């Protein structure tokens, strides 16, 4: 008897729980349905587009556009997917799971040389041509490393080998009269870079924001050797948006919509630094005080093809890509 009562009680509680759960999940979704219905006619015309983003500060601008309804205004129903790394996102764009990706241009060029039909369709975020750039090579202050050529024979950490970090550092060392082939590169993830630098596992580390701000805040321990982008390729894009040949050649309307909406979004994010910061906070999970202090890339959808041409030539020069891809195809007109 006792067991039976107990089972009944459990059943009642479980049923009540289910009821509550269905109620609580029901109301907000009902609300949003109402909201969509208000849009009325617009809802049917929205073109569904999926974009892949990394959870880093500049990528938050796309989320900002979604939150502000800019993509919807431009007739896009945007789905944001977050990926773990650029290399992981590219296959998804290649197979059409994502229509567009936001990632670094060098990966796109590398993929293109491997016969993967990738196209750069717009600019996104750019390194700053002068002043304090958004990534830098940082050394231990006590070591007194002062110039790029001092890196000869030392160990430099970047987040990934054969990407923009070691490419621009190679160029910077050479331009300074040093021998880049004597620099040893080692992969250390950005969040670990400064502790590993202090522990002596690298003599210099290449880091972007927000880690750069962290280093700048402690000049007794860390000093900035320089900005390799400014030394090698001033104003190089840190990220572009890219797509597959199937979208660029087969769905030009979609491409056009994306370009217009992105341009409007990036302009809006530039205008509204406060609102953009709030999106960075929620999108990356960085604390507010960190977000306020960090330097931000220049955001624009405009892309000068020359800078991609230069980047491609440099990547081929240092053997990062075996041959240069056909840039007339890769840079979508």
């Amino acid at each position: 008897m006792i067991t039976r009562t107990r089972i009944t009680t459990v059943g009642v509680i479980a049923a009540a729980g289910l009821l509550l759960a269905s109620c609580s999940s029901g109301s907000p979704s009902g609300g949003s349905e109402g909201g969509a219905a208000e849009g009325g006619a617009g809802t049917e015309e929205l073109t569904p587009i999926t974009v892949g983003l990394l959870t880093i500060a500049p990528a938050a601008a796309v989320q900002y556009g979604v939150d502000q309804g800019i993509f919807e205004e431009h007739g896009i129903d945007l789905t944001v997917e977050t990926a773990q790394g650029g290399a992981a996102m590219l296959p998804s764009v290649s197979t059409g799971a994502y229509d567009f990706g936001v990632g670094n241009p060098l990966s796109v060029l590398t993929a293109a040389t491997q016969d993967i039909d990738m196209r750069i369709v717009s600019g996104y975020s750019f390194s700053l041509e002068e002043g304090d750039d958004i990534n830098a090579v940082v050394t231990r202050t006590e070591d007194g490393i002062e110039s790029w050529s001092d890196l000869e024979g030392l160990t430099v950490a970047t987040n990934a080998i054969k990407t923009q970090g070691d490419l621009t550092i190679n160029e910077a060392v050479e331009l300074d009269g040093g021998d880049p082939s004597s620099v040893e590169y080692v992969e250390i993830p950005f969040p670990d870079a400064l502790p590993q630098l202090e522990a002596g596992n690298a003599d210099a580390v290449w880091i972007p924001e927000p880690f750069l701000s962290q280093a700048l805040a402690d000049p007794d321990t860390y000093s900035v050797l320089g900005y390799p982008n400014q030394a090698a390729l001033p104003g190089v894009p840190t990220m572009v948006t890219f797509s597959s040949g199937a979208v660029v050649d087969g769905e030009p309307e979609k491409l056009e919509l994306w370009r217009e909406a992105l341009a409007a979004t990036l302009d809006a994010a530039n205008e509204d630094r406060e609102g953009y910061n709030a999106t960075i906070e929620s999108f990356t999970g960085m604390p507010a005080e960190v977000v306020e202090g960090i330097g931000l890339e220049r955001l624009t959808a405009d892309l000068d093809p020359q800078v991609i041409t230069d980047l491609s030539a440099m990547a081929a020069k240092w053997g990062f890509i075996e041959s240069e891809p056909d840039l007339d195809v890769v840079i979508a007109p």
Partner: protein
Amino acid sequence: MRKILSPIGFALGLPIVLIVIWYVATLGATNPFVPKPVELVQEFGAVWFGDRFVGDVVPSLWRFAAGTTIAIVLGIVLGIAVGLNRGLRAFTEPVFEFFRALPPPVLIPILALVLGRTDGMRISVIVLGAVWPVLLNTIEGVRATDSVQTETSRSYGIRGWNRVRFQVIPSAMPQIIAGVRQSLPVGIILMVISEMLYATAGLGYSITQFQRQFAVPEMWSGILMLGLIGYAVSMLFKLVESRVLRWYHGLKDLENAS
């Protein structure tokens, strides 16, 4: 002739069937991320039998061998000590359960701070993961020693090292070997993971590099290499096991026959 051919046929049958299915399924594939068997085999030779064999494969194998050997020896020694001593067991068990649950990959940044970017760091990662199956199985094996055997040893005055050597180890051996069997693949997995961070050479490093360069067939050839190493290790293990546990298999056969 038939006696030799049929086991070989059984061993190769499933792989051949799978490869044929794979070959047919990818005949028309244009997706560059899909590996194809013929391409893969061609790349395999070109990629791994050259500089990379000495530069990447040998260092990886060395770390794996060192890491798993230390893990096995440490696991058996500690396991016997803990298994024989009830007080020590009560004292250490909660701690073992705690450390066992820690995934060694998350310890890599910390180990790198302490040990630097060295082979020692990578071997420690392997040991930290591979020691648990051996250790816990050894403890259980030693605990489960037949009490009649123990009483017999005692009444014949066999004690100390002799008892461990001639009674405890042999009777725990089937479970120790089971632990070793589990620890080997863990060792291979951790060998790869430990080379994915802070590395400049090794199998794990090469595979991530290939992946980033979108060198897809090369990347899959690295994965094939890992699979072959895993296969070779398990064959080697079987050989050792059949030697060490010959008496045990003989005993089982007898029991089954009767």
